[in-house]
């Protein structure tokens, strides 16, 4: 596993996080929360574009051709496989997973790789408001199921104690390793991670998750542009064929 693989994982997760946020732009508990969901969605989709753009300068692009046909080739956490049905899922993702991604980006910005040091810095400013939003809603108290699942997947995203993130940290490419990432997440959220067990023997290093599965068919179709084609007028379909 390389730094490019980690950046691609960040990019895919940011893209899915942005899409899932956007799905709540008319379903959040208040108008302000609707607008925040839309704004954070746009931010994260923009961040994913920047991260994809870093792959070429980093060297070998780890995006495989299977990404066009197999949803399982997209490197998102299982948390984003299906649309969220409860606001508590939104809040847990916002507070815990979004912050986990930000901490990893901070680690890239503090590392020795120039393209990441420069291009990812601006994201950290925007993410400050995602964090304030997530932490505030988290303090109000949410369903424990979503919370525990988000923590579990955040720890899976950071990776095993002696895995490639730790190796990249030792090489100086990342400012911190998995243990420090977890500590910083707990400090920022002013809480301890719940007791969760990660079965590292089941962990997929590319997708940074232990669970099988993939994003839902509708979302995958949308990512590939198929949903857009489905609603195109017949004349456009004829022209395309």
């Amino acid at each position, binding site marked *: 596993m390389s730094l490019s693989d980690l950046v691609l994982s960040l990019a895919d997760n940011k893209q899915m996080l942005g899409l899932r946020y956007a799905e709540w732009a008319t*379903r959040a*508990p*208040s108008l*302000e*929360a609707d*607008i*925040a969901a*839309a*704004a*954070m969605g746009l931010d994260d989709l923009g961040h994913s574009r920047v991260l994809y753009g870093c792959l070429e300068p980093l060297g070998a692009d780890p995006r495989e051709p299977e990404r066009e046909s197999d949803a399982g080739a997209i490197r998102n956490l299982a948390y984003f496989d299906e649309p969220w*049905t*409860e*606001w*508590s899922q939104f809040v847990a993702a916002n507070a815990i997973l979004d912050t986990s991604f930000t901490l990893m980006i901070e680690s890239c910005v503090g590392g020795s790789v120039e393209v990441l040091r420069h291009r990812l810095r601006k994201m950290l400013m925007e993410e400050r*408001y*995602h964090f*304030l*939003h997530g*932490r*505030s*809603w988290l*303090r*109000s108290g949410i*369903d424990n199921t979503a919370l525990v699942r988000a923590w579990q997947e955040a720890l899976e995203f950071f990776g095993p104690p002696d895995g490639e993130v730790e190796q990249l940290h030792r090489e100086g490419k990342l400012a911190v390793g998995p243990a420090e990432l977890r500590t910083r997440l707990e400090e920022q959220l002013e809480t301890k991670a719940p007791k969760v067990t990660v079965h590292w023997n089941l962990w997929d290093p590319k997708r940074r998750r232990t669970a099988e599965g993939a994003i839902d068919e509708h979302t995958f179709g949308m990512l590939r542009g198929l949903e857009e084609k489905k609603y195109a007028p017949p004349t456009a379909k004829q022209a395309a064929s």
Partner: protein
Amino acid sequence: MSTGYKRVSGDAVEYEVFARKARVDPLHLVGSVVAPDADLAMAYARATYDEERWCEMAIVRKDDVIRLWSPGET
């Protein structure tokens, strides 16, 4: 889907949002947001009023504004 979030209604207060585009401009009122705490009010203000390139944005609890007089009282 869960409903009935008490912090949207009972706990929430109004915050006025001020901003300016250039250092030479005075801060002026651009709108308001309703939120249960200052953290969330900051996130809401940024999300709602970020369509322009402000060089400064600030929020203040509406309750903290001391009014000398109001419309119709002069």
